[in-house]
């Protein structure tokens, strides 16, 4: 039997019987050709490539990650629950050392789902990676986690959830927000007062090709990872940077994805977007799987691939070089910047957000208030208004000091339901969730 260099776990859950609408790009057909390609390639026959079925998620992990409005049961579909459950199954197998690496080929994706979620944004309702992080911390006491988001769209949901969390380094590579949904992910989005520099964004110009992506990896992502020293690396492996993707304008190839995966060497990859289901996904997914497993991927090329078509213009290369330098200096100056904030006379840090739910066509208005605390990362409270609901959500962080923890509970007790439709509290320190009855 064939044997790969690294043992690898795959979860292949195409959810063939689920779709948003009959012509929606996030559809049943999405993983069909990938599964064809994987089967024809005989991947199930490698003795150390294992295929597992997902598990159903325990809703506790959803409520410790998200504030689902009006309720989990009314916005989260079975399909989303299975996708999130898959992320947990993968985490279990990798953390228990049953396999070295894991890749969840699941749909729907999750990286656009914010902490407060009213429904579908960019085909995401709940955040698969963020829920997995919750699980890793609770069950495996993992401290330092790096999430590298290589989807073509900015991973705004993941960024939102770990905005003020220094233990989670979030780096997103994406097509520049002035030219693509969701319109965020600029270099000045660098994290909350206690986690400055732990959110890094690399907005790339349209038509960036393999060269540009790999440059970012070599010159920014890998050096930063070496300094951060994460206990685990998670890749939000979106595949819509492909030159044939209908929703985006990038020039990444299957070989490029494979090289990126090999260099990044994530412990866990989770499929995000990717809508060129016929010309890209079968080859890109195969390339990623081979790279994760340490199998020679040099013969994986799109049938129509012609590298000359995708030579990167010099101005793009120059821009990317400057971009990496700029972002690296943010990373380098993070302590200094945090010190300035903590030593200043400001008590709170505010973030005003207007979040557009593209799939459903409505907008959420949010005010986030983070306490600037010298002993912990600080209590968070969110005032959110959307679809006629008014939500007051409190987050007590993992590392909360006693003051912040007590203040969180007091705030919850003293907030009247009458003023809000929802009063909610996540006590991450004690892994408890509270909701005031309506």
């Amino acid at each position, binding site marked *: 039997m064939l044997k790969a260099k690294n043992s690898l776990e795959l979860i292949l859950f195409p*959810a*063939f019987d*689920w779709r948003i609408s009959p*012509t929606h790009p996030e559809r049943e*057909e999405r993983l069909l050709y990938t599964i064809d390609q994987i089967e*024809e390639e005989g991947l199930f*026959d490698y003795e150390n490539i294992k295929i597992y*079925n997902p598990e159903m998620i325990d809703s506790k992990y959803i409520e410790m990650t998200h504030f689902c409005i009006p309720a989990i049961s009314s916005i989260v579909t079975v399909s989303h629950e299975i996708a999130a459950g898959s992320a947990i199954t993968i985490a279990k197998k990798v953390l228990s050392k049953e396999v070295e690496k894991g890749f969840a080929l699941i749909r729907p994706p999750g990286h656009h789902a914010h902490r407060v979620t009213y429904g579908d944004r960019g085909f995401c309702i709940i955040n698969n990676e963020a829920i997995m992080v919750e699980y890793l911390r609770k069950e495996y006491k993992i401290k330092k986690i790096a999430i590298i988001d290589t989807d073509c769209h900015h991973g705004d949901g993941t960024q939102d959830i770990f905005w003020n969390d220094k233990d989670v380094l979030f780096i997103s590579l994406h097509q520049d927000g002035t030219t693509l949904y969701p319109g965020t992910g600029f270099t000045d989005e660098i994290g909350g007062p206690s986690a400055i520099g732990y959110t890094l964004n690399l907005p790339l110009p349209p038509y960036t090709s393999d060269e540009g992506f790999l440059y970012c990896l070599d010159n920014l992502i890998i050096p930063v990872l070496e300094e951060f020293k994460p206990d685990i690396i998670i890749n939000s492996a979106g595949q819509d940077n492909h030159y044939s993707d209908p929703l985006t304008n990038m020039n990444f190839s299957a070989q490029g994805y494979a090289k990126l995966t090999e260099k990044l060497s994530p412990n866990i990859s989770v499929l995000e977007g990717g809508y060129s289901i016929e010309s890209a996904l079968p080859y890109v997914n195969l390339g990623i799987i081979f790279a994760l497993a340490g199998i020679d991927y040099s013969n994986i090329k799109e049938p129509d691939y012609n590298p000359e078509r995708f030579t990167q213009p010099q101005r793009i290369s120059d821009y990317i070089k400057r971009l990496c330098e700029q972002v690296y200096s943010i990373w380098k100056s993070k302590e200094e910047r945090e010190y300035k904030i903590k030593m200043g006379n400001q008590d709170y840090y505010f973030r005003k957000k207007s979040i557009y739910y593209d799939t459903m066509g409505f907008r959420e208005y949010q005010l986030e208030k983070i306490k600037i605390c010298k002993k912990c990362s600080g209590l968070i409270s969110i005032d959110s208004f959307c679809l006629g609901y008014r939500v007051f959500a409190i987050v007590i962080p993992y590392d909360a000091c006693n003051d912040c923890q007590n203040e969180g509970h007091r705030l919850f007790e003293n907030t009247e339901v009458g003023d809000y439709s929802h009063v909610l509290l996540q006590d991450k320190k004690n892994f408890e969730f509270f909701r005031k009855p309506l």
Partner: protein
Amino acid sequence: MIVGLDVGGTTIDIVAIENGKVVASKKFERGESLIDSVLESLTQFISKEMISNLEKITLSTTITTNAIVQNNLDKVGMIIENGIGANPEFLMCGDMNFFADGYINNRGIEVKPVNIESVKSTLQNFKQEDIENLGIVGKFSVRNPQHELYIYEVAKEYNFKFVSVGYKLSGKLNFPRRVFSTYLNCAVYSTFNMFYKSILTFSQERKIPLEKIFVQKPDGGIVNLHNIECFPIFSILSGPAASAQGGCVLSNFVKNAIIIDIGGTTTDIAFLSNGNLVLEPYGAKIGKYPTLVRAIYSRSVGLGAESIVKIVDDTVKIGPETKRWYEKGKNDFITFYDVLQFSNSYHENPINAGLKSLSTQLNMSQEDFCKLVISRAAAMIEEKIKEGIEFINNLPVYTINKFLYGEKFVPQKIILIGGPAQLLKPHLENELKIKVEVPKHYMVANAIGCAVGSISKEYNLVADTIQGKMVIPELNIYQSIPADFTIDQAKKFLIEKVLECREAKNQDDVEIVDESSFNMIRSFKFCGRMIKIKAQLKPKLLNLRD
């Protein structure tokens, strides 16, 4: 009357069944030459009266399996069109291999034509190197065999003795297995042909029409000897299928069970789930080669009646070494069978010297020592059962419906067959805490399983309405369809074709086991459907009434 013959490790078992009753059975010693032994035992067993009302004879033999394991194979040249994917070096299974340029994609669309000039010069080379058998395999050829067939046509001019094309062996996707299956199909050609010819002579001499002679396949189904001539690989590994099937027909029907066949050297374990024997997801593995040959899923333990019991580092070890009873000389070793016999009767017999010596080494009474050996054996079996249950319960599911409502496999009983079954039964029941049933005729259950096999086959239909094409590789059907073709039309068509080929007698024999229809969207617009249907001939196992 139907006759079943099973070639085991040490014996050849034959049974005759009439009106659902076993009317005769016999065990023959296996001699030097396998073919001679088979013919000899058939000649002795089948009387003139039997021939007059003979319906069929089914043979399960290890002849092709042995040829592969012993590397007694023909020289084969392989033309492989590997396309895009893994580095193809590991596919070089032939004596000479050529990687052809060309590619057909997963939808059966030609992406790059085959470079026929280089193929021609390769064929020339093969002939110069005295290669007589040729295998032709392309990636995604089951979605469109055009390239394989083109090479096949060209190869005709070179007069190879035997040519096999990949897409005909199975409709399943799995390119490496298709390559290996095609290679093996070519490599066992001479061995099988020798067997084929001997049986042909036998049938002519005894005036038994060839249409009545069948060979058992590793999926438990049977195939007429005449039809298997081009697919000798289908005769591999039929042993576990015969025993699993034998166990099933001899016991009272349950939905979920484990069938254990304890033989002389090994114990084979098969699984009955939802009333069907569980199959390998792709096919059998033979020697070092994974193949696409449909096969029942079975686990094997190197534990049997003739396994030697010994002590290694203060612990009991059983097998995998074996000794035949007549090889026993000075009572200096004991077998698992001896232990079973002693535990069931505790009578004085010649084995006691050996038993005494082993039990003394562990400071145990002979009774306790035997108990230890048996619980060790039960643990070996249990481990494989657990592997099997885990395997079944982890078979991939691709739909939410199956994920949520799919039933878990929980065995209701063990069906135990094979020589020492009666002796092992109480211990296994006691150790594994599950009901164990030893059916009547457990000694020749394999041959019975072989006799009762029915024709079994799988069909994979793929229809693509954008291209207006439909394929059913197993029936060699490649034809156009209208743009509004539906899944119901596809099902109807498949069933009709199976009936037309006379592979099924009526509609109820064809079972749709998997079906899906995907809307294909290009530029946010519906533009066609991808329809996939998997059907099988329902195995019709005879019910034995005694």
